[in-house]
């Protein structure tokens, strides 16, 4: 199930899965375990908070995959790799963490908040994340995220083709 999903996603985006069968198996097991314990397949190589709203950006395929593959040939955990890596032409090095320290810290702050101020602390933090509506100027795809995607999942346009939708609907007339 996890494997099929990853294979299908790699095909869609023109990527490959890690060519080392044992390493790949290990990553897929990690993903499966996270899906079982959190309810979503967060990155096996990152500490998740267990709170969906804090972990959304690291649910596989994570928000950082596309820029990491473009720059380093693999995503952070190396589940997805570029063609040249798949074919064995490029040696893989550890990929530095692109996720902001602020977001990483949420996996730890959730815990602190729980102990000192139950519920409210976590709620306040969650409200700091402000997703916006973005649309792809090329194909019209609309997405509700903190940032537009690296490439449009529909037409593969680059991030620069996305613009924020600032229109508001006024219900009071």
């Amino acid at each position: 199930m996890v494997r099929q999903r990853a294979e299908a996603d790699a095909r869609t985006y023109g990527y490959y899965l890690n060519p080392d069968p044992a390493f790949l198996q290990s990553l897929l097991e990690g993903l499966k375990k996270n899906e079982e314990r959190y309810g979503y397949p967060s990155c096996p190589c990152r500490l998740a908070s267990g709170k969906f709203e804090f972990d959304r950006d690291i649910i596989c395929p994570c928000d950082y995959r596309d820029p990491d593959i473009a720059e380093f040939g693999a995503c952070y955990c190396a589940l997805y790799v570029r063609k040249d890596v798949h074919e064995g032409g490029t040696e893989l090095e550890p990929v530095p963490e692109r996720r902001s320290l602020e977001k990483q810290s949420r996996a730890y702050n959730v815990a602190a908040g729980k102990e000192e101020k139950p519920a409210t602390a976590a709620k306040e933090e969650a409200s700091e994340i402000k997703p916006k509506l973005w649309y792809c100027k090329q194909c019209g795809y609309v997405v509700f995220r903190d940032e537009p995607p690296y490439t449009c999942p529909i037409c593969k346009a680059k991030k620069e083709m996305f613009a924020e939708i600032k229109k508001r609907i006024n219900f009071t007339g």
Partner: protein
Amino acid sequence: MQFSKVSGKKNQHKVVLYALSTCAWCKMTKQFLKDNDIEYTYVDVDLCEEEDKQKIRQHIQSKGGPLSYPTVIVDDNVLITGFRKDKLKETLGI
């Protein structure tokens, strides 16, 4: 906090590994240390109590490291982020 100890003949350095139970790179690091007969202790951070996670975070950040796993701390002095064979070999004299 419950550290697991892995015995090895090469025990002149104090090697502490912070890992994630689901992480393939962390598993490779554990295997590499074991294969080279290095004595080390490790803890899987994702399986820790919340207050221990905070302590680990403080420990890693006090050594100037990013919050990435695996993190290896040698002699409470040298911090190595990620599975870096070259750096591990150099630091541990393998």
